């Protein structure tokens, strides 16, 4: 989210200074001050429920791309991770991410490193304008709701990569750490006004790096420590393991595509002026274009390279296009959005087999989609946003990557040597639904 500072500073500026200006503006046709607050809040709520919907998208995408014998487990992980994220982001994450000046380490001026500890507190019931936390922004409740969904999105990314072999509870423990600490801390560096924002002028509008690459790095660390699914790589060969339900995977992709309008559009953080309304509109249009371009590119490339269109790649392509445009969905023209998204599509078509060559087993292609295309998208900001600098983009990419990967690796490692993260070999063969949950996803279809 662009230039995010929930601006206590702003709120401190004497109200009167603003009033005349506002009154004048209002006379000139601008919305009244409270209307701006309402519209901004409503934007967050609408976009927030769209991003919520992405949780369902991930669940369906992943349920469609695993084998039936692991489907119930995958569904359980997705419902569970979202719920855990909801609780832990409230308990710890939100204030860690948005310390509003109260940094545990660092300051607003120098750029913070570690935010504030404490549960999220919303505005009271039926507040008047004077009691709003930030009347020039939006209600804290709507902001919290919207931000929470981003945190959950980062967590959703992880579950896809590690599917079909990771144990349920260790996975949930990792998710708790990710959503309580890892995600919020690094997000504070940019969106909470931390050092990546202040010192590097890092630009990441809706989070190609801050959200998507974070999920990708955490997944990568897990995938390395967890190892590939049994039978995936045999005698130096990649043995494909087909997804069991492509309609579900397609549904999930459409859901994600829809949710992404909220993801990127809501990150404008404002709908209270003509400019904001036009900007949110640009964002919607660009987001759609990038997704379309990613899908078409993957369609053409798989036809050319493999001689047949690969639907799963097309779905990944659309998502990679979406991830790629996420770092800057506003400044590109529709043509540039097409280029940026299209390159996202290229990235997955080559990224998926590339990972396989490294024997990193990513069940749903989350690493190419969210990490590789996330890096690309963050760099692509340079193409259309004159405020972006190469150093200001690349250094944060590296810092966030290093932080998330190292900490995630450590957490996964600790889990691995303590309670273990991988199900037994025979359990894996029989399917996690039988061994972890004792419940088939389609008890009647599969004998």
């Amino acid at each position, binding site marked *: 989210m662009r230039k995010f500072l929930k601006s206590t500073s702003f709120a401190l500026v004497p109200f009167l200074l603003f009033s005349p200006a506002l009154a004048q503006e209002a006379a000139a046709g601008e919305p009244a001050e409270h209307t701006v607050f309402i519209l901004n809040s409503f934007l967050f709520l609408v976009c927030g429920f769209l991003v919520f919907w992405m949780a369902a998208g991930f669940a369906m995408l992943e349920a469609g791309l695993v084998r039936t014998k692991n489907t119930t487990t995958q569904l359980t992980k997705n419902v569970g991770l979202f719920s855990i994220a909801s609780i832990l982001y409230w308990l710890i994450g939100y204030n860690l991410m948005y310390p509003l000046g109260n940094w545990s380490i660092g300051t607003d001026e120098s750029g913070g490193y570690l935010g504030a500890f404490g549960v999220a507190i919303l505005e009271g019931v039926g507040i008047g304008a004077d009691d709003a936390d930030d009347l020039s922004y939006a209600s804290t409740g709507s902001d919290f709701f919207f931000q929470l969904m981003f945190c959950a999105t980062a967590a959703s990314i992880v579950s896809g990569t590690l599917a079909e072999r990771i144990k349920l509870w260790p996975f949930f423990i990792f998710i708790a750490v990710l959503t309580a600490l890892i995600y919020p801390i690094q997000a504070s560096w940019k969106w909470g006004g931390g050092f990546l924002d202040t010192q590097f002028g890092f630009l990441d509008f809706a989070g190609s790096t801050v959200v998507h690459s974070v999920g990708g790095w955490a997944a990568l660390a897990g995938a390395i420590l967890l190892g590939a699914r049994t039978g995936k790589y045999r005698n130096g060969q*990649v*043995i*494909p393991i*087909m997804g069991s339900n492509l309609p579900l995977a397609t549904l999930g992709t459409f859901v994600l595509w829809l949710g992404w309008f909220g993801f990127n559009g809501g990150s404008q953080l404002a709908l209270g002026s003509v400019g904001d309304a036009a900007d949110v509109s640009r964002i919607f249009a660009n987001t759609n274009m990038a997704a379309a371009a990613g899908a078409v590119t993957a369609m053409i490339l798989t036809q050319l390279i*493999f*001689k*047949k269109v*690969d639907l*799963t*790649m097309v779905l990944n392509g659309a998502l990679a296009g979406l991830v790629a445009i996420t770092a800057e969905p506003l400044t590109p023209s529709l043509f540039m959005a097409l280029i940026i998204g299209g390159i996202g599509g290229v990235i997955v*078509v080559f990224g*998926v*087999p590339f990972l*396989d060559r490294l024997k990193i087993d990513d069940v749903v*292609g989350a690493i190419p989609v969210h990490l590789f295309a996330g890096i690309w998208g963050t760099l692509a900001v340079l193409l259309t946003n004159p405020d972006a600098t190469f150093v200001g983009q690349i250094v944060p990419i590296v810092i966030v990557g290093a932080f998330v990967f190292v900490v995630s690796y450590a957490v996964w490692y600790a889990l691995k040597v303590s309670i273990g993260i991988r199900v037994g070999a025979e359990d894996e063969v029989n399917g996690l639904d039988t061994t972890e949950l004792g419940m088939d996803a389609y008890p009647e279809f599969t004998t």
Partner: protein
Amino acid sequence: MKLIKSVIKPFKLEEVRQALTDAGVPGLMVTEIKGYGRQSGHTEIYRGAEYEVHFVPKLKLEMVVVDDLVDAVIEAIRSKAKTGQIGDGKIFVQNVEQTIRIRTGETGEDAI
């Protein structure tokens, strides 16, 4: 009494069933199977990785008939299931020692 077990291409079911009925076959068991045979082994690509497809979807028909009907049944299947292209399938004949109709308790040829 003989059990005739036959593998056919799925889309031939309707034609074959019709021919068998005409030939006087009173009942059938149809099972969806995966077949492996000469018509196998082509290569596909999934997410950039090649793999061989060993199995082809087929239907297995099983029917128990009186001995006299065996030739007619074989002929019916042969003529209707044949496309002339690889993978058309097989017919196997085995002996059956006893048959019982559950509903009535009839046995032997009456039960078929």
